[in-house]
């Protein structure tokens, strides 16, 4: 096989490979192939301001409320789980995509309480709703419009560390997160996952990530 035929074979195989494609593709030349510029700067909304004829508060309201369920710790044991999300006083924003409003979002007030005292927090979350009324989530497969903010260690209760699968004292800036799961087109979560993440003190730049508990809402 000549070098040229090898190169051609490489090109032929390129679509079938993983992680190799970029080395085979020429880079875009901005001078000849300019990308369109978009302004995606979010727009803060004044109270009562509509977006494309939609009332942001009405869009938010569908996804606010309180839900009860059962939390199961991975380390063993169950307890009651209460989650609340209310509108709060934070402003609303319109999310733009190339200057066109596509969603509204805000930071609702959220409460998380468990019967065993491991969770007893009030804080902010993130609520994002598309102008079609559906969830405007972070990724294509992410159906969660509502996300409680992560809980840094300073916000933990004294009962929480004992429930974790690892010794949080061995971690730098450990964080607990609650990820709500919604079925398609649903406005209430059906389940949730509590996760732990952090950098182990012995390994800089490590990214440990563990499921701490799961929640099933009633």
């Amino acid at each position: 096989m000549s070098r040229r035929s090898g190169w051609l074979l490489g090109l032929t195989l390129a679509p079938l490979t993983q992680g190799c494609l970029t080395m085979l593709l020429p880079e875009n030349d901005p001078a000849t192939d300019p990308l369109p510029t978009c302004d995606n700067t979010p727009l803060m909304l004044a109270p009562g301001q509509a977006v494309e004829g939609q009332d942001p508060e009405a869009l938010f309201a569908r996804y606010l409320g309180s839900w009860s369920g059962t939390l199961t710790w991975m380390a063993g044991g169950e307890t009651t789980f209460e989650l609340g999300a209310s509108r709060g006083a934070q402003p609303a924003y319109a999310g733009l995509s190339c200057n066109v409003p596509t969603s509204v979002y805000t930071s609702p007030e959220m409460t998380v309480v468990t019967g065993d005292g491991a969770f007893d927090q009030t804080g902010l979350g993130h609520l994002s709703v598309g102008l079609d009324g559906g969830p405007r989530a972070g990724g294509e497969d992410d159906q969660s419009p509502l996300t409680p903010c992560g809980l840094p260690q300073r916000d933990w209760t004294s009962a929480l560390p004992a429930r974790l699968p690892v010794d949080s004292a061995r971690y730098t800036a450990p964080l607990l997160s609650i990820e709500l799961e919604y079925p398609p087109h649903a406005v209430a979560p059906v389940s949730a996952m509590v996760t732990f993440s952090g950098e182990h003190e012995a390994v800089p730049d490590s990214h440990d990530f563990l499921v701490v508990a799961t929640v099933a809402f009633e």
Partner: protein
Amino acid sequence: MPDSGALSEPRCCPVTLGHGDCFEVYLVAPQIGPEARRPGVDQGTQASWARLFALALVPGSILATGCLFSPDDSSEEAECLDATTELPHDGTFELEGTGQRIELGPIVAGVEGRTSGVLEWSQVGRSTDVTLTIEADAGERVTVFGDCDTYRGIDIPAHLELTSADGVLADRFGGHVSLDEAGRVIGSPVLDVPIVVSQLQSVLPAGFGTTPDTDWHLRITPELGPEEELPFVAATIVLTTGWTGSDPVQSVTLGVATFGGTR
């Protein structure tokens, strides 16, 4: 809280670590362009740990991805045929254009070796002696990359064995050692093997619970010396899960091995 940029929405929540991390092993294509050529490579000069190669133990399937194919601007030498071939460990790769012969035996032998050190189990704060052994797979032929006048590198099927004195680790990994024409490591050496978590119970926190249907793997990431040389100077040991539907990839740092020398 307004923000600007490609993402239209600022998220108040810190990004969760690990979610979506990709632990795939990427085998980087050898530098086989003209700039990588080094005419006159003498086989004997590649036989030491310090200069030789690199360990890129990868799943066999990775080798089938075609990553070893790389475009090279070779229009000026279109007549020089690709001579990539499989040879026995004691074979010879001959550069027809120059008549140079590259003995593979010393290169293969140079891959092999044993290094020892100390493994600190990071979840429980306990340490133990650890030994890491690399052994070429005598039952498999090596693949030599090159053409009529250039030796470009070699892929050597090999085994790596990691053993700890406390008996927790006794794992043997199969894979490939890939070296460029100068004997440098090619690719990221990441070792991955399925493991039963109960085997690691003594080095896991007491509260570490797992669901029965979770497939755990032991992932070991050795670190080469500053010049991408063997032997390995350290290794990080992580317990991790693979992709299972919509479940996140979990990972927990189990330990760090520091190797102090060869024997």
